[in-house]
């Protein structure tokens, strides 16, 4: 049962343009969401998060949007840079404790110079 889904295995974007990575979830108990970036041979690196009481959170070039009614979140990267090329995972927590994160399968982002 895949409770967090990233339906696009890969995304290719030109440098300077916007990258939009999408994530859907099925568990209505999820109320905190995170995005992680992973380079080869490294562990996932925390990027940005959003609580279910918000619909948008920004941090520099990264913005996360949450649509609770649609059970959908997205990560926008503007402008995209070649160094952003990595695997991006969305993750969710059900808010009952600072515990289990449920991850999606990941989206490989390639930013071309």
């Amino acid at each position, binding site marked *: 049962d895949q409770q*967090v889904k*990233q339906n696009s295995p890969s995304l290719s974007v030109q440098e300077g343009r916007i990258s939009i990575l999408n994530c859907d979830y099925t568990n209505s108990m999820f109320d*905190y969401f*995170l995005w*992680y970036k992973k380079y080869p*041979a*490294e*562990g*996932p*690196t*925390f990027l940005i*998060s959003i609580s279910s009481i918000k619909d948008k959170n920004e941090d520099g070039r990264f913005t996360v949007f949450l649509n609770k009614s649609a059970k959908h979140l997205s990560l926008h990267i503007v402008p995209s840079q070649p160094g952003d090329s990595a695997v991006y*995972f969305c*993750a969710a*927590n059900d808010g009952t*404790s*600072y*515990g*289990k*994160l*449920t*991850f*999606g*399968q*990941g989206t490989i982002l390639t930013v071309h110079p």
Partner: protein
Amino acid sequence: DAGVTQSPTHLIKTRGQQVTLRCSPKSGHDTVSWYQQALGQGPQFIFQYYEEEERQRGNFPDRFSGHQFPNYSSELNVNALLLGDSALYLCASSFFSYEQYFGPGTRLTVT
């Protein structure tokens, strides 16, 4: 400030053997979580340790066990290894936060 460290980096074991993986959390963190990441998949939660106790567990068999020490470091033990246990094992630490900080992982290969 040292981040999360894990050892060893790589490990090759034979089916039926036992393995122990180690993790030191980021300075100031007291909670350690373990995840298994199969090729092409996202990390899957194994369990979490806090105050030397297993606080939460994912859908993994009892062959997977762990321990947390008074200095907050942690071990993951896997008994009776199966070929399907081959994966990247990630340790993450946190301190009263949903945001978990990950180590580089241990690549386990079972032959």
